């Protein structure tokens, strides 16, 4: 079966006391996919691959454009706490979860609070820990397009980069970036995009099978952060992709999808 672009459904679901924009696609057991700090990326090749075997749950986090902001959510742990309630209401836990960048941070925080709600955890270029060496690139000292360009090692030769960051973005696209940046700013302004205690709290994930995926040339979150995640989560494994930046899912989509499929089905 092939899922074509735009084949997902889109609905507002009532969870955690609010309306959440939830996109769904594919068939099979649920896989929760958590978007990063620039918001939902649109339908990409890796979605298509994963949708063959999983029902992808692609929520738009509150405040990121499609779902209303919750005023009381002032940091990532607030958001993680809310999301656990949302998961209860969705009734899909324990679930496999795949989080990108800020979505990875969110997944990691949720897992520390309630590891039993997750079957498997995949973190891709995750924010959330202070890199032992290097620094997290400051998205707020860049304009949106520069940030996205920095996030990919070779934008020119990355076909899906245009989809993520068109040369001439539509008004809707710009507005969506704007909303995402605002909420990302609320969640991660200071300390910049990490929670100091997270590495220690991650000890709690000893029974949660975890894969950490990182681009060796990630210019947004240094690889040292991925190594720290790997050291902090008992029994986790780290896969480092060569010639790859912060967005393995579009930089090496096929390889990435295979890697994820293999881990999830293992």
């Amino acid at each position, binding site marked *: 079966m092939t899922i074509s672009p735009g084949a997902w459904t889109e609905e507002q679901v009532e969870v955690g006391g609010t309306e959440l924009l939830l996109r769904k696609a594919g068939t099979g057991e649920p896989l929760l996919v958590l978007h990063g700090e620039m918001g939902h990326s649109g339908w990409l090749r890796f979605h298509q691959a994963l949708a063959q075997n999983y029902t992808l749950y692609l929520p738009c986090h509150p405040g990121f454009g499609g779902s209303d902001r919750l005023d009381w959510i002032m940091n990532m742990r607030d958001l993680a706490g809310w999301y656990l309630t949302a998961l209860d209401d969705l009734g899909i836990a324990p679930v496999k979860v795949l989080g990108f960048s800020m979505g990875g941070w969110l997944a990691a925080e949720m897992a520390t609070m309630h590891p039993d709600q997750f079957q498997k955890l995949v973190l891709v270029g995750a924010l959330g820990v202070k890199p032992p060496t290097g620094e997290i690139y400051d998205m*707020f*000292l*860049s*304009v*949106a*397009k*520069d940030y996205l360009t920095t996030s990919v090692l070779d934008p020119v030769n990355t076909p899906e980069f245009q989809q993520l960051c068109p040369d001439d973005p539509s008004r809707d696209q*710009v*507005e969506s*970036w*704007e909303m995402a*940046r*605002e909420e*990302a*700013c*609320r969640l991660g*302004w*200071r300390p910049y995009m990490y929670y100091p205690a997270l590495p220690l709290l991650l000890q709690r994930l000893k029974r949660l099978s975890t894969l950490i995926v990182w681009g060796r040339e990630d210019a947004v979150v240094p690889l040292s952060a991925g190594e720290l995640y790997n050291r902090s989560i008992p029994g986790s494994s780290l896969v480092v992709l060569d010639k790859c930046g912060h967005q393995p899912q579009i930089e090496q989509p096929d390889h990435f999808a295979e890697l994820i499929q293999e881990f999830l089905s293992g």
Partner: protein
Amino acid sequence: MFIGYFTERPYQDPKSGYFGATGSPIMDLTVSNETYDAVLGAELYNRYLDEKLYAEEMGFDGLMLNEHHGTPFCMGGAMNVEASILARMTHRAKIVLLGNILPIWDDPLWLVEQLAMIDMISRGRLVSGWVRGTGRESVAHNSPPTYNWERFQEAHEFIIKAWTTPGPFRWEGKHYQYRHVNPWVRPYQKPHPPIWLPGVVSRDSLMWAAEKRIPYIMLATEMEPTRQAFQLYHDTAAELGYKSGSQNLGYLWKVHVDETEELAEQTGRKYIQGPSNPFLAGNEGTVNPALVNLPGLTSRTRVLPTQAVATSARGGGGGVAGVLGRPYEQQIKDYTIICGTPKTVVPKIRHVLEYLRPGSIFFWDGDGAMTHDDAMRSLRLMGEEVIPAVREIAKELELPGPFEVDPATGEPMATTSAPAEVANPDSDAG
């Protein structure tokens, strides 16, 4: 009419590489302080204070200070320090702070104490303005821009309460929490020093000023949108059921007076030289597009007519610098720079007063690459000829200032809001 004097206190270093119309551009947060010359810095701080003292001598009602962070075009990174010195060394003029950048203070109790001390030492001459700051300020002090407006409002409420309510009390707010508020200094003026609000861009801020019935001062904005913004204030006041007037509105713009028209023109052009301040357009200053509007700093939809919507997601452009920045010739033409001898300057000031009808005005002078001599010549001529003439015009046009008519009520002010008018013999030492 309340007449104030302002300069942004530029760091004028001809050796810096970014000085002068041909110097390399300053972009916010891209200029390292490694070249900072301490001797020059000391010289300039003292020069600008001296000019303020002379401005008081020349008859200005107010000495205005502002604050920016991490940039050579404004040396007032800790404006309250300058205000403290003026509190002690001046005798009559109001010390007008426009203003403290409320949202970047994590501990606004420091402001409660510092400002009350300035009010005490000056014996009730503090005008305490607030601003929200630009992206530069949020980044420099690492204050979350998305909470800028909430923090602004909460800090204001907290400070007013701390100034007016006997302590100790507790404050358990969203952004600020204190378990024991009882500062051992309370302001000289009762119930508290006047609060003014300067602005450029945000409709939220203007509406807030109108709701609080406090003077709103527009900073070097173009005339027509300024008039529209003033009208918005008046309309809001009418909706809220009170009559606003010139006492509620102020305008700051660039005015330089000189001995001859030639000298005035030559000196006026120095506005656009000096450190390449993007707010003094026509020079090489460059706005950092990412800082134009940090996420959530200013509402993207609730802006004043002076502002074109611009955001960092859109790639920047516009913003505060976009509002203020126009070429020299254009600014001369649209009256946002007035340069000349007293004879030619006064009719132009009259035009601005007729057009905008403010009750407070501030002459922005001595900026860019202007020297101490340039500033002092202008101050002398302002004192001798311009200020007296402007006072007459203001009377004729019926433009009372906020110390003549109460902005909150539209009624004539009581003679003093301070406990008592007392001589200040100690301050003669200055």
